């Protein structure tokens, strides 16, 4: 299945083939969870990210992705 992925901040450049824009469409196996997707996309799993799935926050990393999903991953941010 294909999933659209976008990452921000310090994750830019980490996706496979990332040219610095931090986004791409990736082929993932069926029934891939968010946690498994992070692993396959070179995103370190131990960090507390803000994750959004189809423009809504998603905190369950065991959530199974569907074809056509849009996954956004942001490192923790704060302040101004």
């Amino acid at each position, binding site marked *: 299945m294909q999933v659209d992925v976008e990452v921000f901040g310090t994750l830019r450049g980490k996706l496979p083939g990332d040219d610095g824009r931090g986004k791409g469409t990736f082929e993932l196996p069926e029934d891939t969870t968010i946690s498994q997707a992070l692993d396959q996309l070179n995103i370190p799993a131990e960090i507390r990210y803000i994750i959004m799935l189809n423009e809504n926050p998603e905190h369950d990393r065991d959530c199974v992705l569907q074809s056509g999903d849009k996954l956004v991953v942001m490192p923790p941010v704060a*302040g101004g």
Partner: protein
Amino acid sequence: MHGWAGQILRIDLTHGEIHKEPINETWATDYIGGRGLAARYLWELMPDRTVDPFSPENVLIFATGPLTGTNTSCGSRYMVVTKGALTNAITTSNSGGFWGPELKFAGYDFVILQGQAPRPQYLWIYDDTVELRDASSVWGKGTFESEDRIREEVGVSDAHIAGIGPAGENRVRFACIINDKHRAAGRSGVGAVMGSKNLKAIAVRGTGGVSVANPAAYMKALWTQHGKMSNSEDRKGMSALGTAPTMDMTNQFGALPTRNFKEGTFEGTENLNGNAIRNGESWIRNKACFACTIACGRVTRPSDSAGKFMVNTHPRNWKIAGEGPEYENAWSLGADCGIQDLDAVLMANLLCNDLGMDPISMGATVASAMELYEKGVLTDEVTGTPMPFGSGEALVRMTEATGYREGFGDELAEGSARMGAKFEHPEVFMGVKGQEFPAYDPRGFQGMGVAYATCNRGACHLRAWTPALETQEGQDAHSPVGKSSWVIEQQNQSTAHDNTGICLFTGFAGSVLEDLSELTVAATGVEYSHEEFVKAGERTWNLERVWNLEAGLTAADDDLPERLLKESHTKGMSKGVTVQLDQMLPEYYSGRGWDTDGRPKQEKLSELELAEFLV
């Protein structure tokens, strides 16, 4: 005393008299220091809370905390406490850099300024030597040039200077105080108050240090704090990209105020976010304040193409290095004005620092004027230059004009509340208590609505930052449930934090407030429990509230613009959401122990040992 220097400076500017006196130890213990202790002094020294902010009766206090100047991580902060020129409320504006520690090294916790100098002056402090000097050589000059000249005049190359630019002299209502050229006590117009007192700057050099009561316990707590911050992923993110990545988060949540809060998402974030600043040709390096272990500061220089912005009086600024933009400035001068040209943002930000103005209020005021221009209320004849949303040229031109109160800049210099009211469209003011909002749309983060409405110094993101809660598992960013109690807790804690003299960002970078209470105990020798430490924050918050009530503010001032209460966005994650302040505010008052009119009840004031302040 330990932690505290134990001595304050009282300056009678009217008569040119300088007094040194011991710090009030009872008050220092009750309020910890900094913002809280300064509020207590302001209460004592300014019995008529209703005076005009520009009156000689207004009192201007520069205050450090007991950890300022120690090697506690980010121990750089001083606060400016006074009646705000923008808000007519008590304000507490906070800055880093190196000036605050230098004041402690000279042997003083506070500088309290009263009256009005008969002519422009600056204060020079070199350890025990304290003198008022003629400021005619720097009056009218920008902060960058003024710092260099004052340093030459006093003949001490490592003196640190906090002062105002032309904006403060011209009483621009959101003028700030700049120290070390690029760090700012930014909000509420503290620089305008300083200007009204004919005080250009305070230059200071100190050769002493800060003693701590229990060095072994202090160092143990310090290494604990440093260890947490060193390993923190949050800290690493701030070191790498500063604060501007927050723009990506707020944009995703539909909470990035755009074009004067008419929208909650912005199409130009990729040109203004942390990556754009870090990877752009303007980037030079990180910068840290005194004892900082984060280094969120960005040293930048406008690119060659910035020369397209014709800045009349400061052509030298085209190619000099400055600092920023932080997230707030990238938003206010960028998205809020519909501008995605980083050069325009950098130029306006640099001008704000040199002229001495708060970039949040500057950008937000330009944004409100751009809305009036879009509506046809303002025309080219009035503004002197086209002001559509998205015009970087208008932003840069108007920033400069505002600092000098030239042309339409004279209207912008009043801030968007007064400017909007003058042109009979008060609805374009996006703020609270006369102060413009910072960079979070409460329709995307509901809790920011009650945080903004209740902040004692007007709209502010530094007293309670609810995205920290509202992005967590189990939280609904669009629900008002539970937000008020969390805002109360945050306000009390952040106030205790401010009182110590430590940068709030330690709390975003791996350290927790318990670290600071432990360090404060070790530094001062006062055996605060953590609960007593936080209680000092709550005591400060309530004293500020009572101060404001005596100044004439009421519950009606704890309100939000109708745009946030009745109009929702049509796209983005916050689509269809309005702020439910009518639910959150009563819960807030009740949770605070205040009555339905927002007045602290006698029981609450007694609990906080503030019974004598009952209004």
